[in-house]
């Protein structure tokens, strides 16, 4: 098909889509004008009911805990897919043979300090997720990122013990399954699935929120390990073929 014909076919579609888009934008409420009752209700209800000062996490792990479980298993399914496609022991060893330690001492020193700081901030985000901004997902991603830094400032041999799948795979199962176990515990006690089981505790402390703390930790473990596996598989896909090819040519 010629270029002209293609443009002729494109134009009506583009014009239609463009006008619909402009219509939608013009009909939007003004910036910062929130109308839905859901947010207002939650803002008023979550802190008195659950004593968690971060309303977002109180919502995620209590008011709509089932949705969060679905999200966690989306991530879990994605990781299983990546692992099935990319996991390859030989490639992991190839990556180890072909990476060298970064030669600059100053960069490595800063990197090591950043790993420590990153891990500390990640643990803080996970533990205090339902009190201050943060939570299992944010902390988990940061934790895995800090471990990935180990590869950047060291080499693959330093990094490899932290991506040992014989350790990681069961822990990933523990995180994903733990969420369901907390939900089933509520079912066994006679309440609905994922009902908050424990007392609400003192507002603004780690003991507030009841089951929220357990669910937060379960998802923190699941996300942390999922991200470590994801980074490791992609990193080895990136490192090994390139290096092997360069060595061969």
């Amino acid at each position, binding site marked *: 098909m010629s270029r002209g014909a293609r443009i002729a076919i494109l134009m009506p579609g583009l014009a239609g889509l463009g006008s619909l888009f402009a219509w939608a934008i013009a009909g939007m409420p003004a910036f910062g004008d929130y109308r839905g009752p859901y947010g207002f209700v939650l803002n008023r209800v979550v802190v008195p009911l659950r004593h968690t000062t971060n309303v*977002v996490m109180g919502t995620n792990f209590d008011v709509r805990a089932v949705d969060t479980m679905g999200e966690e298993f989306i991530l879990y399914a994605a990781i299983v897919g990546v692992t099935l496609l990319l996991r390859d022991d030989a490639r992991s060893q190839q990556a180890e043979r072909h990476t060298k330690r970064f030669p600059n001492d100053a960069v490595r020193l800063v990197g090591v300090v950043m790993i420590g700081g990153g891990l500390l901030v990640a643990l803080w985000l996970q533990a205090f997720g339902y009190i201050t901004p*943060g939570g299992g997902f944010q902390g988990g991603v*940061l934790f895995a990122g800090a471990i*990935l830094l180990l590869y950047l400032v060291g080499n693959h041999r330093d990094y490899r013990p932290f991506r040992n799948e014989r350790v990681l795979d069961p822990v990933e199962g523990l995180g994903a399954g733990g969420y369901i176990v907390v939900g089933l515990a509520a079912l066994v006690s006679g309440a609905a699935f994922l009902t908050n089981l424990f007392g609400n505790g003192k507002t603004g402390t780690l003991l507030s929120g009841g089951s929220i703390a357990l669910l937060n930790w379960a998802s923190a473990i699941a996300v942390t390990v999922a991200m470590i596996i994801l980074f490791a598989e992609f990193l080895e896909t990136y490192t090994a073929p390139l290096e092997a090819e360069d060595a061969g040519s």
Partner: protein
Amino acid sequence: MILATLVPLQVVSFGLVALGAPLVVLTRDPLRQSLVNGVYGVSLVCLFVVLAAPDPALSMIVVSGIAYPLVILAAIARSRRHERRRVQEDKP
């Protein structure tokens, strides 16, 4: 409700995002593009913080800074390898 004192900050962060997005698209080299995308991600983080959404901002830092570039680089490395192999097979 928008706090009046935050409006200039919001304008600046929206401006940075609006400036960053075309820069990412207009960068042709994929390696540089993933770096520019990281900087663009930081501008999105600023926007989230200014709009009082610290939770997504925290995850955005790592996702845009580490996870996304890594995934892109791995994909590029793979597809380039395929391309090169195809070129080599076509030669003889």
